[in-house]
């Protein structure tokens, strides 16, 4: 594919608001996870909760979209000057020529959950939540389109944990087909009862801090995050050089036992990027800390990549941010390309026997040219992104 330049990019998660705080947390190996204090009857687990979401106030013109998920989106837009850079791109290309493609798993379902908890005596939604736009999945895309002043293509992608990775692939296609000249991609998912109690019902929630790839791992920690990237045909910055998408065709919540889908997505990304596996310096793994994902992902990585590839899961810093994991971990991957900080894996004490030498516990400092980010999701939807450092132009 013709590479696209990532000219602006940002992420806000439990590991910090913006790239600076995220990089510092990664460098000092400071986890953003904390004991679950979300909701009236919190499950015993750890969560990646973003500071300041409760206190964030949307501008008056955007009050119609008020809810936790859109407040988190708004916080995310402020970080790293992204809102300013997005406005400049809008002015440069025209508001109708910048596509908006964003991922989420549950969008603002938290607002619907809250309405059900506060139904009035007639069984109706409370007046403050009688706003249809926050009770539909496109709440996120519609909010962002208005917040960014865009008038072109705008879509919300909801393929669970691969959502905000797949948006990069879709943006590349929209630009290739001439539907847009540039694209703002990203993803936002926020803490809500549906995911905490939903994953709990599948017995996938860990009572303790998640420990990706540890033989003693006991499941995932749910996190929340917002992240965005501006993709352009020209400009200065690291580049999106490939992507690979696939379906497991196996099970709604369990990966293919031989990792066929994961492997197909990795191979497709390498092929589209015209990259041999040996050229990959860093892989940000999906590494959720669930029994099955980590076992299968470790085996596929061991099969495909040389010893020298540094691979790690950063879920120990942020929790699993579900529909925002793709963009959050794309940002961590871009940070690795820009700074040479290759994160290790946090909270994990030893590596499971399935892990090859690629999966590292410790951080490393080493300039890399090419890096991948894996997102393998619920519903068997997989996406791998391939990025190249800016000097590989």
């Amino acid at each position, binding site marked *: 594919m013709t590479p696209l330049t990532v000219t602006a990019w940002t992420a806000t998660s439990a590991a910090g608001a913006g790239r600076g705080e995220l990089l510092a947390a990664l460098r000092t190996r400071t986890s953003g996870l904390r004991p679950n204090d979300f909701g009236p009857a919190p499950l015993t687990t750890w969560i990646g909760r973003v500071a300041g979401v409760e206190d964030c106030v949307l501008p008056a013109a955007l009050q119609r979209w008020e809810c936790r998920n859109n407040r988190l989106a708004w916080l995310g837009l402020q970080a790293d000057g992204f809102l300013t850079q997005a406005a400049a791109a809008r002015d440069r290309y025209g508001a109708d020529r910048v596509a908006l493609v964003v991922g989420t798993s549950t969008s603002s379902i938290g607002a619907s959950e809250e309405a059900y908890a506060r139904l009035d005596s007639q069984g109706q939604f409370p007046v403050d939540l*009688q706003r249809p736009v926050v009770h539909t999945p496109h709440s996120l895309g519609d909010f962002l389109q208005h917040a960014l002043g865009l*008038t072109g293509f705008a879509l*919300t992608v909801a393929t669970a944990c691969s959502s905000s990775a797949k948006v990069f692939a879709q943006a590349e296609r929209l630009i290739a087909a001439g539907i847009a000249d540039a694209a703002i991609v990203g993803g936002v998912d926020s803490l809500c009862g549906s995911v905490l109690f939903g994953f709990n019902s*599948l017995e996938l929630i860990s009572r303790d801090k998640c420990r990706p790839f540890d033989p003693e791992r006991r499941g995932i920690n749910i996190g929340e995050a917002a992240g965005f990237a501006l993709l352009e045909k020209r400009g200065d910055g690291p580049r999106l050089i490939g992507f690979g998408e696939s379906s497991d065709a196996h099970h709604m919540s369990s990966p293919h036992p031989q990792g066929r889908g994961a492997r197909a997505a990795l191979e497709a990304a390498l092929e589209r990027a015209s990259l041999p596996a040996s050229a990959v310096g860093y892989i940000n793994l999906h590494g959720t800390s669930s029994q099955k994902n980590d076992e299968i992902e470790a085996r596929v990585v061991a099969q495909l990549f040389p010893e020298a590839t540094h691979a790690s899961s950063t879920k120990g810093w942020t929790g699993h941010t579900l529909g925002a994991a793709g963009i959050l971990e794309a940002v961590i991957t871009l940070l690795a390309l820009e700074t040479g900080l290759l994160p290790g894996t946090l909270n994990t004490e030893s590596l499971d026997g399935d892990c090859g030498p690629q999966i590292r516990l410790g951080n490393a400092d080493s300039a890399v040219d090419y890096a991948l980010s894996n997102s393998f999701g619920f519903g068997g939807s997989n996406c791998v992104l391939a990025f190249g450092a800016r000097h590989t132009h």
Partner: protein
Amino acid sequence: MRHRVYVEGIALWAPLLPGWELAREILRSERTPTANPAPRPAPTLLAPTERRRAPDTVAIALEVATRACELAQRDPASMCSVFASTHGDLAVTDSMCDTLAKTPALVSPIKFHNSVHNAAAGYWTIGVGCEQPYTAVSAWQHTFAAGLLEALTQTVVQQDPVLYVAYDIAARGPLGTMATSTGLLGAALVLAPGPTSASMVQLDWCARPAAAAGPSRASAANGALVAGNAMSDCLPLFEALAQCGPRDLSLLAAPQLELQLELRPA
């Protein structure tokens, strides 16, 4: 930029338009719609034990996806797919929100599986053994045309056939006052980048700023057959496909973005 694709498979299902063969005649005014709404189609792709408890979104999406592939004579396992739904499974969301408000620890794993926006797409790829990528999307009032634009884009960029599936179901409970939708409606197309023996319609398309004239509408009589369903904006295109003649259409893919379509018999 203008692009060309070919429609190879068409499917439509609503209680008063149960299947493309009947729907085609009704939309051409060659047949009077049945007075009795048809019962929900059975999702025969699923294991017998899963059929009855499959949510409505899965049943309707799998039905139209299967029929469109049959008409196109394409192997469902060979195609990328785009699944579009305005609201996802409103009945499951109602039930989840109700349980979360009362007894959150009792959320059922089946309900949680079925609550995700990509549930129908996931069950489809599992049911037909499709390892090609799918996506699951939403754009509120513009979901049908926005999803179609993504499917058209995939078809021309990847130069491979794409299955497009759009569906919405009836809302239930308190949520129904905010996310309004009634009845069942599923629509599907198989789109191919070039002409084949299965080509039925040649479709030229482009995306452009919306014209003041507003989007195309189905006839009042046809529109009434699916009125109230959140995916009813699919009807102008399916009416045009039923009528087979040359036809130009404009659909809204975003509040200010128009998907302009030129249909010609292939």
